[in-house]
């Protein structure tokens, strides 16, 4: 047997001393065939029978009372009502499962998990296992990728909740998206935070008004040789400090040009007096301003200085408006709600039941990524063990016959690995059918319901202040029914060989 090599084990000296064929598995399942050596004789008498029967007694008591009895009890309980379970309702609880939108959401999520996760994680494990065979630091790589498995799912959920946080100061993913987004859509120096109730018209104070195209425009016109004064309010002292603003200074008129100032229309010594430029008021620096002709086209552009002053030279004839451009107020990127309920399928206009069945909330994708991070290491190591136990001669032969690495992988390695791939797939399938901790801990409260699965529904139905015990039991039975195929597969594998 290759068990020792398969798992990188050195057999402990005790085992080696007596040359015990360690039955550690050739397949990750580790199933030794049932066929046993027939006991010699029948002997020993009743006493030795009871002797070894006693050994299984403690385990039998635990299993009987805590696993087998509850199995039956839950099955029975699912046929009775939600209150004290005194009246028989038949399949009523099961009908309720499929008639309740909130439960359908959970079932739909289970379906999404089952479709996406087992396949993806097995594929990822296969890729990693095959690639690590080709590098010299495979052990380090495998250790790093395998490590998250020993974390509690609760801790992993917290880790990923932070990774996907909406705030680019907290969430790494949003920070990365922001870095890219800022290149194409840079935020202004005076960002308006619409989610905090700010709007452009709140900024207008003297001689300006907000326009439909998110700019501020002077309400009066100005012509060549004139001076325009635009007063804004609601600018935070912190912003001014950051921009190194100086006290406002109105420039003197220049012939052939238009000059002016954009200033903070608030004076500590003249509280409540608007429209006058006082010497203790601040200029608003670094604003992009444009001079607009009466037809709305731009005649010239400029940027305000530290004291808020701007100059347009040689503007020509006509009446002009001064515009403070929208780029000054852009809020830039404010974060993608990865843990939100927004669906990636277009279901917004459908009925509530149809939404429950067909939506794929973004938070599901985020959680699946987190679970891949947790379980890819297991898939990789299991498949890697399978790879290592493959018949090298076959692979050598393929090479001798001139097969490329890719051909060998596709035509020889993967078909030979199929049993291991199936084991990993089925294991991950059972795993996501029961998925609970991640759902409970990763989505924020607002998206928890859209992220729920059977296991979470059971928890919320059976263990809240007003438990619906009959319904919860029916959900348990449904979950159990879903894992039965996997159970049968295990049994077949163990009996089969």
């Amino acid at each position, binding site marked *: 047997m290759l068990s020792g090599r398969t*798992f990188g084990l050195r057999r402990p000296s005790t085992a080696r001393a007596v040359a015990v064929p360690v039955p550690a598995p050739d397949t990750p399942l580790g199933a030794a065939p049932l066929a046993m050596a027939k006991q010699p004789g029948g002997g020993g008498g009743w006493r030795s029978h009871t002797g070894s029967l006693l050994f299984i007694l403690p385990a039998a008591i635990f299993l009987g009372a805590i696993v087998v009895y509850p199995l039956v009890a839950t099955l029975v309980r699912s046929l009775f009502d939600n209150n004290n379970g005194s009246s028989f309702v038949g399949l009523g609880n099961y009908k309720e499962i499929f008639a309740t939108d909130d439960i359908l959401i959970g079932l739909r999520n289970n379906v999404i998990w089952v479709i996406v996760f087992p396949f993806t994680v097995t594929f990822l494990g296969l890729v990693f296992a095959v690639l690590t065979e080709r590098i010299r630091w495979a052990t380090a790589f495998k250790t790093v990728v395998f490590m998250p498995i*020993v974390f509690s799912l609760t801790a992993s959920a917290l880790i990923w909740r932070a990774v996907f946080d909406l705030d680019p100061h907290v969430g790494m993913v949003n920070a990365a998206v922001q870095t890219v987004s800022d290149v194409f859509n840079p935020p202004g120096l005076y960002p308006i935070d619409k989610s905090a109730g700010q709007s452009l018209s709140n900024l207008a104070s003297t001689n300006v008004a907000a326009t439909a195209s998110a700019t501020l425009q002077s309400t009066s016109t100005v012509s060549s040789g004139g001076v325009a004064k635009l007063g804004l309010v609601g600018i935070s002292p912190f912003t001014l400090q950051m921009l190194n603003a100086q006290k406002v200074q109105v420039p003197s008129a220049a012939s052939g040009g238009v000059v002016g100032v954009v200033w903070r229309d608030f004076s500590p010594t003249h509280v409540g007096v608007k429209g006058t430029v006082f010497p203790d008021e601040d200029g608003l620096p670094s604003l992009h301003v444009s001079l607009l002709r009466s037809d709305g086209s731009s005649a010239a552009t400029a940027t305000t200085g530290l004291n808020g002053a701007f100059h347009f030279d040689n503007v020509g004839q006509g009446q002009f408006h001064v515009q403070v451009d929208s780029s000054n107020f852009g809020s830039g990127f404010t974060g993608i709600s990865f843990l939100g309920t927004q669906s990636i399928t277009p279901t917004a206009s459908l009925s509530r039941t149809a939404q429950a069945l067909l939506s794929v909330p973004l938070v599901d994708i985020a959680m699946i990524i987190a679970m891949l*991070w947790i379980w890819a290491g297991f898939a990789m190591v299991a498949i890697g063990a399978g790879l290592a136990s493959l018949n090298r001669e076959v692979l050598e032969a393929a090479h001798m016959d001139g097969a490329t690495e890719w051909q060998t992988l596709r035509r020889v390695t993967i078909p030979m690995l199929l049993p291991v791939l199936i*084991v990993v797939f089925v294991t991950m399938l059972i795993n996501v059918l029961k998925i609970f901790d991640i759902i409970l801990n990763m989505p924020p409260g607002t998206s928890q319901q859209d992220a729920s699965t059977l296991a979470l529904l059971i928890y919320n139905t059976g263990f809240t202040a007003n438990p619906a015990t009959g319904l919860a039991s029916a959900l348990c039975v449904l979950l159990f029914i879903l894992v039965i195929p996997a159970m049968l597969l295990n049994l077949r594998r163990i009996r089969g060989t």
Partner: protein
Amino acid sequence: MTTAAISAVPVRTGGWRSRLRRRRPVLNVVLALIAIFWLVPSIGLLVVSLRPESAFTQSGWWTVLTAPSRLTIQNYTTLFSQGLRPGGLLDSLITSAVITVPTTILVTSLSSLAAYSLVFGRWRGRDAVFLVVVALMVVPVQMALLPVASLYKLFGSATGFNPFGTVVGVVIFHVAFGLPFGIFLMRNFYNGIPRDLLEAGRIDGAGEWKLFRRVVLPLGVPAAASLAIFQFIWVWNDLLVALIFLGGNAHAPLTVFLFDQVRELASNYWIVSTGGIISIIVPLIVFFSFQRYFVRGMLAGAVK
């Protein structure tokens, strides 16, 4: 610490393997990036736990790369200085251990006994019983929560001690659900022990207990170690069972401690990250100390 467990095959000279491992710069870079991607989220948690509470929403944790001097162990000292206050971090750490250690010992010893009986016992129907055990491996714990809770209550009214809401109740439940896999793993291992070894003992008049204690148990140490490590980490990381069977008990394990904190995440991420790191450290130490045993248990448990 050994890193042998994860690498599936020892490096051999010549032939297939060395041809596979020829210089591949692109592959090495790609895998290095993947490894970094895998590490970064955990490092993030660690760094957040080492930053002042106020820094959390002001700037991303990655900004410490430019100012590493701002790291502090303040969060850890604050949480541990609360001492054994029920519901505190230290109290949770101890509760986790109080649940995990007895469960691990019980599962390992009861599984070994049962497996001995299944392999070397001479009663009929052992194969059938083993198949039942295999079938029970995939039973979801959810199936048992409600009935066991009422069973505990019944036990309480009969004897005066209701295990619901106590560590005992959690341990009993964990032991029962740990047994199918434990028996499966130990039975497969014992099945490879030659029966002649025991027959010799029987002829010499050794009883079953002596055979188990002196022959089978020592031989089964590698499998028992795998089982124990696997079980330890499994139970240490459990949330659901503790959440339900501890009820409102003030002494909660680390996972429940974290769960309680998560509900107000934004305001107390310093507690969550610090508690998270503490909860991770213990299984990590166990993992790195007994890596090969854990990996083997994990692979054998690929059906759980």
